[in-house]
């Protein structure tokens, strides 16, 4: 019986060793492991896993091909719905999506769908990329703003339908949050991100970097002067939040975005690169999400004594369980139910400590999480020389402020139809973090795909 086989464990780099380098934490499956794990799949007639996948990958079919050793076929099946299997196999929260719905998971452990997807993606990269069918050129052009997950997914689908697609990227590298946000040790840049971007380019998608839509060129210029029939905005949520407490501008206080951009995009951890990064001896990261985990683990790898400070308890940490687990293994200290109220600086204006209060959990708030309440008289200081604020991000207002008729809500997110991505301006579609606020890679990809379908309909009916 296939399901008698226990879930095949995945090999990982030793925690003590990896806490000092930027090599990938997880090694992934080899061929034997992948085939064994794939053989556990029940190939359900009514696969719940597919329903839970934001891009609707035909999971049982690709896993069946892996079990049979037909890896190229498995790759083609995934490629129909996703150009980024190696990325998603690494960063998707499978535990609440495909794997969360796996029937095997009711009594035992679900099939390791994420690790299998990663295996297929990596196999495909090593074997020269995937072949994908593409309709003949239909003569229409679509512009995509941002080369992150939403933009890449939207671009891929439109290119497959025969559109001439060009992505405009503000930074010098392609991938958006995959490049600047997620660290090398979770998602290798040259080995994985760049290669999957190649998959997208192989579909005929053009990418123009160093082009800030809203500054270098406006959406209206793209439509009126450059002949784009529609525009998809997938510019993400790149603006960092700060707490608004005293002392936040002392030297040594940085946003997680800045810290991670220096480390990831600019490779400041590598001496061969020019961009500096300041790590200090003791780093406190404020926040409990995946970005906070990425920042604290990066600080640790750069040699700091690294701490998480979070105002709720461990049960409420928004980060993936796997990330928290990995962080703990690497020796990150978690200071829960602690809220900073002031950054204290020395006489030269550098951070020397952070003043906090102890919290306790009160009644559940609107989101269902128990909201933290200050414990009276509990003030104390944590000594540190770097404070990293990982409090979430919001969309950049640049596009809204330079595009007439494009509405945003009070959080700065673009107003867009959930099913089609249609914004308040005909011909302009949007999806991903710029609409939802900071969320996941895969939700952004799902939104990009829905918008691609809607853009196709919009252009055909024009």
């Amino acid at each position, binding site marked *: 019986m296939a399901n008698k086989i226990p879930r095949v464990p995945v090999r990982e780099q030793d925690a003590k060793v990896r806490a000092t380098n930027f090599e990938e934490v997880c090694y992934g499956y080899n061929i034997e492991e992948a085939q064994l794990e794939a053989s556990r799949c029940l190939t359900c007639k009514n696969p719940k896993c597919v329903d839970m996948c934001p891009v609707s990958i035909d999971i049982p079919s690709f896993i069946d091909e892996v079990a049979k050793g037909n890896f190229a076929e498995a790759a083609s099946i995934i490629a129909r719905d996703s150009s980024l299997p190696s990325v998603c196999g690494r960063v998707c929260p499978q535990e609440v999506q495909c794997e969360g719905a796996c029937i095997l998971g009711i009594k035992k452990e679900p099939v390791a769908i994420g690790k299998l997807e990663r295996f297929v993606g990596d196999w495909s990269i090593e074997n020269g990329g995937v072949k994908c069918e593409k309709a003949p050129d239909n003569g229409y052009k679509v512009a995509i703003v941002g080369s992150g997950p939403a933009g890449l997914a939207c671009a891929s689908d439109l290119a497959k339908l025969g559109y001439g697609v060009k992505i405009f990227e503000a*930074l010098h590298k392609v991938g958006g949050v995959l490049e600047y946000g997620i660290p090398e040790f979770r998602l290798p840049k040259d080995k994985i991100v760049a290669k999957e971007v190649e998959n997208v380019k192989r579909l005929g998608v053009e990418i123009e970097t160093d082009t*800030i839509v809203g500054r270098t060129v406006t959406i209206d210029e793209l439509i009126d002067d450059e002949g784009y029939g529609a525009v998809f905005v997938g510019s993400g949520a790149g*603006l960092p939040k700060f707490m608004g407490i005293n002392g936040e501008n002392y*030297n040594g206080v940085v946003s997680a975005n*800045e810290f991670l951009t*220096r480390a990831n995009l600019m490779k400041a951890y590598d001496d061969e690169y*020019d961009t500096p990064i*300041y790590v200090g001896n003791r780093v406190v990261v404020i926040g409990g999400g995946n970005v906070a985990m990425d920042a604290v683990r990066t600080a640790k790898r750069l040699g700091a004594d690294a701490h998480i400070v979070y105002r709720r308890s461990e049960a409420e940490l928004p980060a993936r369980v796997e990330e928290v687990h990995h962080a703990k293994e690497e020796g990150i200290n978690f200071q829960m139910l602690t809220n900073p109220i002031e950054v204290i600086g020395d006489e030269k204006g550098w951070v020397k400590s952070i003043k906090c209060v102890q919290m306790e959990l009160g009644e559940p708030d609107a989101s269902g999480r128990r909201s933290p309440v200050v414990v009276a008289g509990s003030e104390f200081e944590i000594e540190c020389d770097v404070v990293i604020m990982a409090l979430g991000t919001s969309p950049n207002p640049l596009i809204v402020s330079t595009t007439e008729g494009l509405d945003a809500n009070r959080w700065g997110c673009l107003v867009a139809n959930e099913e089609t991505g249609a914004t308040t301006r005909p011909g302009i579609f949007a999806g991903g973090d710029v609409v939802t606020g900071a969320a996941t890679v895969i939700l952004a990809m799902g939104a990009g795909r829905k918008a691609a379908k809607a853009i196709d309909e919009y252009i055909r009916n024009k």
Partner: protein
Amino acid sequence: MFKILEKQEIAPNIYKMAIEAPRVARSAQPGQFVIVRVGDKGERVPLTISDYDKERGSVTIVTQTIGVSTKKICALNEGEYLHAFAGPLGLPSEFIKEDIEELRKKRILFVAGGVGAAPVYPQVKWLHENGVEADVIVGAKSGEMLIMEDELRAVAGNLYIATDDGSVGFHGLVTNLIADLIENQGKVYDEVIAIGPMIMMKFVTLTTKKYNIKTIVSLNTLMVDGTGMCGACRVTVGGKTLFACVDGPEFDGHLVDFDEAMRRQGMYKSLEARANEHADHTCKIGLGK
């Protein structure tokens, strides 16, 4: 990749380069900046735009060799390429949105220090092309370090020069010259726009405060992306934290916390110094004295 069309050393260690960047040239306005990157391992360096030619599709930058990255930029020659040249970034100067008739009545004084003359030029030029004659003070350490004099003379109302050593023009600091113009030469100004080293802008704002003249400054803070993502460029203006890259780079100088801005500018100094260790640079603008 962005081609260097022309390169010229306009003062010791200060280079003017015209870069082929048609999209940036088409959208550029006075007051904006670009992010420049040399090599595939280089930093993203914010540099103010010192001219643009929309027809030719080129943008001019002026760079002084100060750190590792500016040295790399200046080491490139005509026909070679910058890896990145992204922009125009930041908000354009406020005056370009003002009613042109009102603007023509305004008596504006620009105060440029060192390489600050470069970003002042497109502003004065824009005003000149729109029938507004603005006075300009250019300050430099010495006559040798003076840049953009001819270009500025062609578009300015009156051009005044101040040198620290008195080798050319007024002998003294730009702040002394501002006081001299107002107190001894009967000049009246409604607005001052000061661009130069942070310390100069601080003292210009202290001077103009005395005369109650509105003063705009352009802040050359640290930046990584230059598009609002990182927050390295945070400045306190009127008690509020703003981002120089997207809320600026120009701000009301009387509201800027310059001491904080200068301290923040030095955040990576010790790391830079290490990177610069083996370099042969001798400072000619009096820093580190």
